[in-house]
C-alpha cells in the first residue's frame, strides 16, 4: 500500500494543486457573489434565478466548471487532511488514513460527476 500511495502521488498532487487553485480563487468568488453580493442587493437577485442558473450550469462549459468545482476541491481536502494527520504524529496510521480519504474523494468525485451529467 505504501508503495502504491507513492506511485499515485504525482496524480494526487496535481489534483490537489488544481483543487487548491480552484478552492481559493473560484470558490471565493462564488461565495462572494452568491453569499454576500446577492443578499446585500449588490447583484440583482433575478440574475441568479433558477432558470438562468440552470441554463448557465447545464451548457457544456458550465458543466465542466461545475464538475471541476466539485471534484478538485474534494481531492485538495483529502490530500490536505492526509498530511494534517501525518503532521499530528500519524505517519504510522497513514496506510489506513490515506486510502480512506482518497476513497471518499473518489466516491464524491463520481457522485459529483454523475450529478453534473444528469443536470
Amino acid at each position: 500500500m505504501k508503495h502504491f500511495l507513492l506511485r499515485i502521488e504525482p496524480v494526487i498532487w496535481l489534483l490537489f494543486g488544481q483543487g487548491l487553485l480552484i478552492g481559493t480563487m473560484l470558490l471565493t468568488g462564488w461565495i462572494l457573489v452568491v453569499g454576500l453580493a446577492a443578499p446585500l442587493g449588490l447583484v440583482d437577485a433575478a440574475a441568479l434565478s433558477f432558470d438562468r442558473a440552470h441554463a448557465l450550469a447545464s451548457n457544456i462549459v458550465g458543466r465542466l466548471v461545475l464538475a471541476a468545482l466539485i471534484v478538485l476541491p474534494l481531492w485538495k481536502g483529502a490530500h490536505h487532511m492526509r498530511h494534517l494527520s501525518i503532521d499530528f504524529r500519524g505517519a504510522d496510521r497513514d496506510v489506513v488514513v490515506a486510502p480512506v480519504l482518497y476513497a471518499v474523494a473518489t466516491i464524491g468525485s463520481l457522485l459529483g460527476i454523475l450529478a453534473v451529467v444528469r443536470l
Partner: protein
Amino acid sequence: MGEPTKTFVITRFDPDKDEVPKTQEYEIPVEADWKVLDAINFIKDEVDPSISHRWSCRMAVCGSCGMMVDGEPKLTCKTALSDYGDRVTVEPLANFPIVRDLVTELEGFMEKFQRVKPWVIRAKEDAGAADSKPPMNDKGTFVQSPAELAEFKQFSMCINCMLCYAACPVVANEAEFLGPAAIALGHRYNLDSRDQGQDERNEIFRDEGTVFSCSFANECSEVCPKNVDPAAAVNQAKFGAVIDWATSLVLPRASAGRRGEQGGK
C-alpha cells in the same frame, strides 16, 4: 546599579553523566546592542566555561550558531536580544540528536545533502568547447547569462544552518525525510542551465520520504535567515517531479538509473 540583566535558561546535557537534558539558569548583565549569541558567549567566557555551543563568523554567513530561542529556530548571531523579555530560553536545534548542551549531531544531514547529487551533472564529457551546450568560453568554463543565474541564485544562498529542519513538522515525525534545505539544493541544480541531471534528481524526488512527504506547512521559509524560501523550492520540485513522471509515461527513457519500475510502460 540599574544595569539591565536578563536570565538565560540554557539546555545542559553531558552525555557522560546525564540521562536526559536538563536546564540551567544564568542571570547576566546585557548590553542594549547584543545579539543572543553575545549573551551565550558572555556566559561561556565569564560565568560558566563548561557550556558547549557552536559559533564562528558572527555575521550570519557560516550557519553554525542555529539554536532554539524561546522555542523558535534562530541564527543566534542575527537575533537581537532586545526583541526578547527578561527570561530567554536557549535550546539546541529541535529535531536533531543532542551531542552536548547546545551542540547537535548533523551527520545524518550530510548524507541527505549527497543524496540529491548537488553538483553539475553532464550527460557526457564535453569533447570541445565549441559544440557544448551551453557553450564554453575560451577558459573552458560554461557561459551563463545573468538571467540563467537568476533562475537558481536564491536557492543557492543556503548556509546549511539547519533552522528549516528544526522548524519542519515532517522532519519532526519522520527523521528520514529529505528535508527543505536538501530539496532546495537539488532543485537549485535542476534549475542550473549547465546541468543535465534533472532526470536523475527527479527520480530521487519521486522516491519515498522526499518532496511528496512535504505537508505544506511553510515553516522552513518562515525561519530561513537567508530568504532562500525552501518551501518554494519544494513546491517547484514537486511540479518538476510530476511533469517528469507524466513525460516518462509517454516518452520511456533509457533505463540507466531506473529502479523499482516494471518495464513495458
